Every structure is written in structure tokens, then in C-alpha cells.
């Protein structure tokens, strides 16, 4: 079924966005990206080692994936904006996964600074995908300043706690004028499927694949889950009932 993801006028064949960090080694990462079916993968921007110059992540991924740079770890508008500008120069893309961290331990977004940074970056010509709270008001503000999508958290980054507030995610999906990408907290395949069933347009996964016992298998599981969840969403779930409703015909039962 042809059902591409559309963000800022760009068509993406997969609704799963995958991270490139925390894999046991480079080969496992490459195998996982392949197994995930992802077209877009994330990267960070970091200072080079002044002692030596190793092979770049980008050389490794070649032209096979669309790279989405992030501003992970940035705690001020200034650092996030400069990181985005460096990413644009280094990767020749104006897409940025905007992260503005308000708490080092929780890696929770700093909403006030996030909206300001998003506004500035949009004005500077960036296609901004902000990692944000699962809060409909924040998501609306981010859309209002021109973000191309919103990326509400399911739960804390790397926590594997899944979607702790599914009602809020569903609400965001039902109201958002821009695509919703569930970011952070995915622990296993069912979490990704749930995100899609709640109405998310895509899911972003890193740790749940990279740190699983068998990352290649989990990458395939995430792919299947996102596809299954999306199909279920499009198909429409049946309403929940308080009592049973027999599946088998009631007529012709022996002994009646």
C-alpha cells in the first residue's frame, strides 16, 4: 500500500525514523538501519577530536539515508541555533531536529526556550522538527511559529517506558495541523504500534533498537510494528464494549 509520510513537502517512504547512536558496533548499526526500512536517520553535531580525524558517520551512511541532524544536549537558544547552523553547513540540509534540554537528568524539553529557538530557526529558513512535551498547547505553539512537524515525547529519552500519557498523544494527533512524530521513550514494538494507532504520523526510535538483546531483530520488529499500527489506524478500531458480543452465528446451534 502506498502510504508515504509527508513532512514539509518531502515524501518519506518509511514512517519509522531511526537513530544512529548506542549500537554495539558500526556493522550492527548498518544492519539495523537496513532492517528498519527507515529512509531518514538522525545524527548529532559534535566537536571534532583535535588529535585525529576518524571516518565520518556520513561517509559510512553514504547517500543511502536522509540525515536529520539534531541539537541534542543543547541547553540554550544560542547553542541550539548555532548547532543547527553548523549542521546546515556540514550536512547541506536545512532540516533540524530541534532539542532544547531543560534538565540534564531528565532530558526534558525547556518549552519556553524551545519555542523561541524554533521561531528563530524557522525565520532563518530551517525546516524544524522539535522534540517537545506531550502537551497540546506546546505543540500548537510550535506549529504556530512554523515548525514542519512536532515530536512529542512518549516518555523520558532512553527510558523505555513507552507512552505514559496515551490520551495526551491522541489529543495532540487529533488537533495538530502538522505531522506528529512520537519521539523518545519507546521500549518495544508494541509501543511503536500504539503510537501509530493513536494517530501519530511516524515514530522515532533509537535506544530501543540499539540496546536490545538482538538489535537487528528489534529493528525489523519496529518496522513491522509501525506498519501494523498505521494499518490499524487507517482501518479504524472497533468501539470498546462493556459486554461480550458473540462472533459465531447465534442461529443453528445444536440443542436449541
Amino acid at each position, binding site marked *: 500500500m502506498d502510504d508515504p509520510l509527508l513532512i514539509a513537502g518531502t515524501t518519506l517512504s518509511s514512517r519509522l525514523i531511526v*537513530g*544512529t*547512536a*548506542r*549500537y554495539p558496533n558500526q556493522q550492527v*548499526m548498518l544492519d539495523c538501519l537496513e532492517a528498519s526500512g527507515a529512509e531518514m536517520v*538522525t*545524527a*548529532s*553535531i*559534535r*566537536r*571534532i577530536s*583535535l588529535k*585525529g*580525524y576518524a571516518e*565520518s*558517520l*556520513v*561517509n559510512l551512511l553514504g547517500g543511502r539515508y536522509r*540525515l536529520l*541532524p*539534531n541539537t*541534542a544536549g543543547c541547553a540554550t537558544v*544560542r547553542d541550539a541555533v*548555532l548547532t543547527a*547552523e*553548523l*549542521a*546546515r*553547513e*556540514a*550536512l547541506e540540509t536545512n532540516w533540524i531536529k530541534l532539542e532544547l534540554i531543560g534538565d540534564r537528568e531528565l532530558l526534558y524539553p525547556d518549552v519556553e526556550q524551545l519555542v523561541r529557538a524554533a521561531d528563530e530557526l524557522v525565520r532563518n529558513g530551517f525546516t524544524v522538527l522539535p522534540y517537545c512535551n506531550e502537551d497540546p498547547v506546546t505543540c500548537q505553539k510550535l506549529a504556530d511559529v512554523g515548525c514542519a512537524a512536532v515530536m512529542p515525547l512518549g516518555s523520558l*529519552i*532512553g527510558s523505555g517506558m513507552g507512552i505514559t500519557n496515551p490520551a495526551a498523544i491522541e489529543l495532540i494527533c487529533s488537533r495538530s495541523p502538522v505531522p506528529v512524530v512520537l519521539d523518545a521513550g519507546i521500549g518495544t514494538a508494541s509501543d511503536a504500534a500504539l503510537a501509530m494507532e493513536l494517530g501519530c504520523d511516524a515514530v*522515532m526510535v*533509537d*535506544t530501543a533498537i540499539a540496546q536490545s538483546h538482538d538489535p537487528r531483530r528489534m529493528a525489523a520488529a519496529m518496522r513491522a510494528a509501525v506498519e501494523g499500527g498505521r494499518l490499524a489506524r487507517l482501518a479504524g478500531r472497533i468501539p470498546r464494549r462493556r459486554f461480550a458480543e458473540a462472533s459465531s452465528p447465534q442461529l443453528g446451534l445444536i440443542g436449541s
Partner: protein
Amino acid sequence: MQLKINGVDEEVGVTTVSELLAARGIDSTVRFLAVAVNGAVVRRSEWCSKNLGPGDDIEIVRPFSGG
């Protein structure tokens, strides 16, 4: 001249971004490299002409793995 390079104060004898990269053994023709001086990106085309001054704060970055 004293410069801050990726957060570290250093004494160097260079005058442009290109010279700084060369002095560091960084091939400036390699792709996916970006440089900022005092909080502003210096485009690759300006690396040869961009003069550095004492106390300049320089960031040299590239893409890494990330989530």
C-alpha cells in the same frame, strides 16, 4: 596568537581558518565539516579569507552518531 579552539585556549601561529585547519592536520577539502568563529558559521568558501583575531572562539564540528 591566543585562540579558543573547541573550548580549549591555545597559542597558535595562524591567521586564517584554512591555516588553522591545516595546522591541526584537518583536511579542509573533506566534506561534512563546519566551522564557527565567535558564534557565527564561517562558510567553507570563506575559510581562506576569514582572518582570525586574538581571543577568537572557534568551533570545528562534524556529524556523529545521534538519536
